[in-house]
């Protein structure tokens, strides 16, 4: 296995993905092929290209949420390297706990857990004790301007923007070295987008690497260090 460069957090090598739709007679749906790029510590790599081109699929494969088709996705883990496509369930769960975090576009709500507990749980998973985790959760929710009266309320009744702020707080609550963000700011207003931009900048300064997609060009311009145009690798016919 190739060792990664000293500050390389993620390397994607000749990644390909095809969906086989068994419910449609086994129709094959190629998504991407030959995708190669890397993410270094402290940098934000943005996947660009039109909607539907396969950006989200790449992010999900990097997180182990989608199966890798062909190629490799390598994650740095100290002086070891994790091959995400071959890691197995335990390996991926471990990587998610310690190394790579994920902010999806929408919060998957679970009943009965208050917003601050959702975020604090993520902080605890990364090793903070209960009290410290709760403090961290509170500070993140405050940064994202979620009203304090909502902190103990389960997010099911929140607006889309409020839910997403909880989602973002959860993603940033840990101590992951690599954060994957999938359209994190789509439902946010300008002020909150600004808060997210600040959060990203702070973490970059601490050495965290980002792999992200942003619908908003303004945000992209403010945080991206490099843009990888996925349409170069895409098999999808896009409007």
């Amino acid at each position: 296995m190739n060792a990664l460069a000293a500050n390389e957090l993620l390397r994607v090598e000749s990644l390909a993905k095809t969906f086989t739709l068994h419910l449609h007679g086994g129709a094959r749906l190629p998504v991407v092929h030959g995708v190669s790029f890397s993410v270094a510590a402290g940098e934000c790599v943005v996947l660009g290209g039109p909607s539907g081109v396969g950006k989200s699929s790449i992010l999900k494969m990097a997180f182990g949420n989608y199966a890798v088709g062909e190629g490799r996705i390598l994650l740095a883990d100290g002086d070891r390297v994790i091959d995400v496509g071959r890691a197995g369930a335990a390996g991926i769960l471990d990587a998610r706990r310690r190394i790579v975090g994920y902010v999806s576009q929408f919060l998957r709500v679970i009943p009965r857990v208050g917003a601050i507990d959702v975020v604090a749980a993520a902080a605890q998973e990364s090793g903070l004790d209960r009290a410290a985790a709760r403090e961290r959760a509170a500070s993140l929710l405050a940064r994202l301007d979620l009203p304090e009266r909502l902190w103990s309320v389960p997010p099911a009744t929140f607006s889309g923007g409020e839910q997403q702020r909880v989602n973002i707080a959860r993603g940033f609550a840990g101590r992951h070295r690599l954060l994957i963000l999938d359209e994190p700011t789509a439902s946010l207003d300008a002020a909150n987008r600004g808060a997210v931009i600040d959060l990203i900048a702070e973490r970059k300064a601490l050495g965290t690497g980002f792999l992200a997609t942003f619908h908003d060009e303004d945000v992209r311009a403010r945080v991206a260090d490099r843009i990888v145009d996925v349409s170069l690798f895409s098999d999808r016919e896009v409007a």
Partner: protein
Amino acid sequence: MMAPLLSVRGLNKRYGSIVACRDIAFELEEGEALAIVGESGSGKTTLLNLVAGALAADSGEVVYRMRDGAARPLSSLSEAERRALMRTDWGFVHQDASRGLRMNVSAGGNIGERLMAIGGRHYGRIRAAALDWLARVEIAAERVDDPPSTYSGGMRQRLQIARNLVTGPRLVFMDEPTGGLDVSVQARLLDLLRGLIADMGLAAIIVTHDLAVARLLSHRMLVMKQGEVIESGLTDRVLDDPQAPYTQLLVSSVLAA
């Protein structure tokens, strides 16, 4: 790297010409929750009972790492050892709570029974442990002397959970733990289970036909169809990027609210 907590190899069971389980193999780590999903007749409940030793397999082996570190095939345990295991290091939560409770014994007695079975002889301490657990499963303390025959379905299920967890087991088997319960009751129970599994570092094998339950509670998943495991992997991966035809069918069949 510690050996897995539970190791299942080549498990087979048939009823005449019907194959209930064919060549099932998987491992379970400490603190890992595994969901076994499938529709009726998939063999998932048979598999659960085979692994828990409630049913005898035709062939194959289930190996469990005991508290002392020794990896013992379940078939090598004496009846006494197996029953002792079921009372201390293992739990079994039945779909029908009345199968897993003494319906005419008070809640405190139900929870305290395991403690008394392993030698607890101090009434005050046993009662205190029972009250502690009632609080943890969100049953009001004043119900401690009521028998579960006076409880609602959700309360019975929570009591069954407390009864199983009081001895701090490392592995819990659950057969459709939320089956038949009202939706709001299910939500509460699932949240409770999720918290307990996390807090106690429990390993769990959860049989369910409900993919949402699998997603909420489990790290990993086995999909069964007609006695065979047709797909397995990380729960979110199997649900979001199903590879096998049957898994794709299952996932696409679930109605969103």
